């Protein structure tokens, strides 16, 4: 690990100010991606702004039917929350499926989405549920938030404060985990609200995406069989030693069908 200056502010405003002043600063949330990267000297940061003392970033609450989760809420807290489990069980299940117990006990919702790993689970849930990301200065629709490989719409000194999740009628997440890392080789989040169906896919491409062909088919007939004829183009997909492009494309259909089947 290279040397850096460490800060632990207690307010969002102080954190944003510290990030703005830093030459090459980075917020530290749960640290589950950032710390290993620093330890391996794959990244060098002038300043780390630890968000763990900012109480306004924590907590889970119901806001008139919308579920609001603070950015510094740990995956384990989301998984165990009675509020989340009753409002959006699929979201609790998604949190429960992240990494391993150690990661879930430290990793946070805000940290995960700000990092935007292409194989992370939360981006599928946020896009699938049509969530809104609230920052220290604005609100961003999930589809506009995740912009590319490890890229988001956040400015360098902008902090995720919370995420607002509208309640779907039904939702399910299915993923095929990488046996080594337990990241999603492919993860598909399906949500149905009224007649509207959203299908979000993580792990397959550079960034989470909505699968419009599947959404159209499911709007027409919300059954696994409706997905059978849909082939997903694999040209832009990730291919690596764990999964080739066409295997990932195949898994998109399998996981989508299983998510829909779970909601029958």
């Amino acid at each position, binding site marked *: *690990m290279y040397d850096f200056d460490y800060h632990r502010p207690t307010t969002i405003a102080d954190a944003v100010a510290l990030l703005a002043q830093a030459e090459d600063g980075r917020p530290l949330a749960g640290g589950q991606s950032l710390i290993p990267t620093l330890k*391996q*000297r794959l990244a060098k940061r002038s300043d780390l702004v630890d968000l763990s003392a900012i109480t306004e970033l924590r907590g889970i609450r119901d806001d008139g039917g919308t579920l609001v989760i603070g950015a510094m809420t740990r995956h384990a807290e989301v998984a165990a929350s009675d509020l989340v489990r009753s409002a959006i069980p699929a979201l609790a299940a998604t949190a429960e499926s992240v990494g391993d117990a150690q990661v879930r006990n430290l990793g946070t919702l805000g940290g995960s989405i700000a990092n935007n790993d292409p194989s992370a689970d939360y981006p599928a849930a946020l896009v699938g549920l049509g969530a809104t990301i609230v920052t220290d200065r604005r609100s961003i629709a999930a589809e506009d938030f995740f912009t590319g490989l490890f890229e988001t719409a956040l400015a360098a000194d902008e902090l995720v404060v919370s995420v607002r999740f509208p309640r779907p009628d039904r939702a399910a997440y299915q993923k*095929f985990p*990488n*046996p*080594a*890392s337990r*990241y999603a*080789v492919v993860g598909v989040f399906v949500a149905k609200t009224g007649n509207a169906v959203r299908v979000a896919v993580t792990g397959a491409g550079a960034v989470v995406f909505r699968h419009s062909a599947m959404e159209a088919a499911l709007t027409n007939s919300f059954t696994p069989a409706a997905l059978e004829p849909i082939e997903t183009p694999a040209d832009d997909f990730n291919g690596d*030693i*764990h*999964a*080739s492009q066409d*295997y990932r494309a*195949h*898994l998109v259909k*399998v996981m989508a069908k299983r998510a829909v089947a779970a909601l029958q």
Partner: protein
Amino acid sequence: MIKFGIGQAVPRTEDARLLTGRGRYTDDIRLDRQTYACFLRSPHAHAELRAIETARATAAPGVLAVFTGEDLETDYIGNLRCLVDLKQSDGTPLKTPPRPALALRRVRHVGEPVAMVVAETAEAARDAAELIEVDYDPLPAVVETRAALDPAAPGIWPEAPGNLCFEWQRGDRAATDAAFARAARVIALDLVNNRLVPNSMEGRAALGDIDKTGRMTLYVSSQGVHGLQKQLAEDIFHDKPERIRVVTTDVGGGFGMKLFLYPEYVMVLYAARWLQRPVKWAAERIESFLSDDHGRDNLSHVELALDRDGHFLALRVDTVANLGAYLSNFAPYIPTHAGTAMLAGVYTTPAIDVRVRGVFTNTAPVDAYRGAGRPESAYIVERTVDFAARRLGLDPAELRRRNFIPPSAMPFETALGSTYDSGDFARTLDTALAAGDAAGFPDRRAAAKLRGRLRGLGLASYIESCAGGGPELATLEVGGDGKVTVLIGTQSNGQGHETAYKQIVASRLGVAPDDITVVQGDTDRIRWGSGTGGSRSVPVGGASLAESVRKVIERATPKAAELLEAAAVDVEFRDGSFAIAGTDRTVSLRAVAAAAAPKGGGPAFSEESRWRPPANTYPNGTHLCEVEIDPETGGVKVVRYTVVDDFGVVINPALVAGQVHGGVVQGIGQALLESCVYDAESGQLVTASFTDYAMPRADHVPPIDFHLECVPCQTNALGMKGAGEAGAIGAPPAVINAVVDALAEFGVEHIDMPVTPEKLWRTIRDARAGR
């Protein structure tokens, strides 16, 4: 007393200490004025080393010294040496290229140490290592086993044309050829034994120290101190062994990988001598991936000849073994002598012909890894038998039974010259089929089908060879206070040797376990030892220890007779006391020891023994595995696992169950998960972290149903056969046989390890498409 006897599943006496953080591992040792080392490692698989500029690193804050290969050359530091003297089939010796502790003029694998920085802190050493400028001229590399012998492959060593280290032959080629010529059926298949990264929980670590007289001490996480001491003295520093002390404290896993001398151990001593200060190095996890010796990595072409009734007539095996870029201590021994002798398996196969070619590649060295050659052989035999059964339309268990060596044929000399002293292979098979409810399998398969899963049943009747490697020295001291000290040259890596040795002493000498201390891992305290490897510690070390116990009793008897005022011939020892035969007059060992203790201190009795096994032992057994496959994703899960082992006499069933569990999990890891991948173009190790290299976890493994069906060993003094590696030997073929069984409906006859999800999915897809 009997509560701690031989054969009882007593809890491990070391666990309270290890599980409450009171273990003392090498990296826990802090010496005064200790310094820290960082190794700069090659980023290239193969490159000319044109120049190394160290001035900026040397001048960096906190840096004490920077060393390169040229420094070692200047100071006449010896090379690390391959300790195996292997004769090729043409009578010439194998090729043994030089291996300096730091690269000289050329690098040959990613992660090879190029320079060493020593600084006041680990951080300063690492910062400075980044300031070293190395001028590399990259060369084409070859990393794949199958590509190494290709005439177009880049050459790694001028003295080894075609990257061939050795070509070696065993068995009877003429008899084998003749048997094949008259065979009713010939079965052929190609098998991959995948490369594995050992991944001990505690990484390698070493701390070098030197005293005012120039005598050096190496603290190192090892599997035995004496072998390292000898090499460091004789090969590296050209000094007397007593001038280098080697100490090993607690060890968190070795699996064979910590047996060997490594460059970093040479360097911490060299640097300590240069600086006259202690120098510490502890591997980061990525260094473990890059620079620990790897395991396995063989390709084998196998042919089996059978008669009309399914009797094996002959076996032909042609193996290419990847040895890496440099020869580690025992590298050429593993795919040759260590493993091939077991190619007869548990069968009567009368003729066997084996050829092994060892090849150099631009990869980390390959050496012994849990089983060391025997898992490779067991995989060849047990996969081939299963493959043949399917081809012949026979039940795999039935084909095995037809060819088993019967107990009545013991001792049995195999076609490759091993003499099995004992074993009842049909019994372990029958017990496994019963315990694992093989009869109920069709119902379980049908139930799985309703859930959309393919269920398969696989078995493997393995045999292996243990307790070789020469004698072990065990010293037993009884103090004037009656307390007992065991000094022994084996080295626990976590197996629980301390408990097993205490059981042997407690049951034979009648001493409470709390009054026994086991000392291992210090060349100053233990005169000699062979170390831990090849499942030999308890079978050989334990037998030596039992002999030392006998000698102590013999030595103490005259003193006891004196105290009892009886003739020595009338005195007998039982349950911790000496008694006049036929009377109730006794005197305790403690009282005898108190009377015999020298006035000036020191033990009352001290006896040593060096029991040499007259032959190898042959642990064997049957593994029965059931898997379920998700055909849509290619995911596979081991859902039921039964093991029946013959380990001969067992000192502690709980310890051997632990060994079997760990071994089976490693075998499942090899069969389904662990894939060590070097990029064929760049030679980079792609799987250099746990993010990409899948280790088995608790949820990959079902409860393991473990049974013992033991036949006492006829050649071991205590009847033991050894248990440390068996799990990892039986599991890979059992798992793959189960996977193939699950896929049988698609006409799939074989799938190579590791059965990763995509590989399995493609196999099913291609089979369905009739490809």
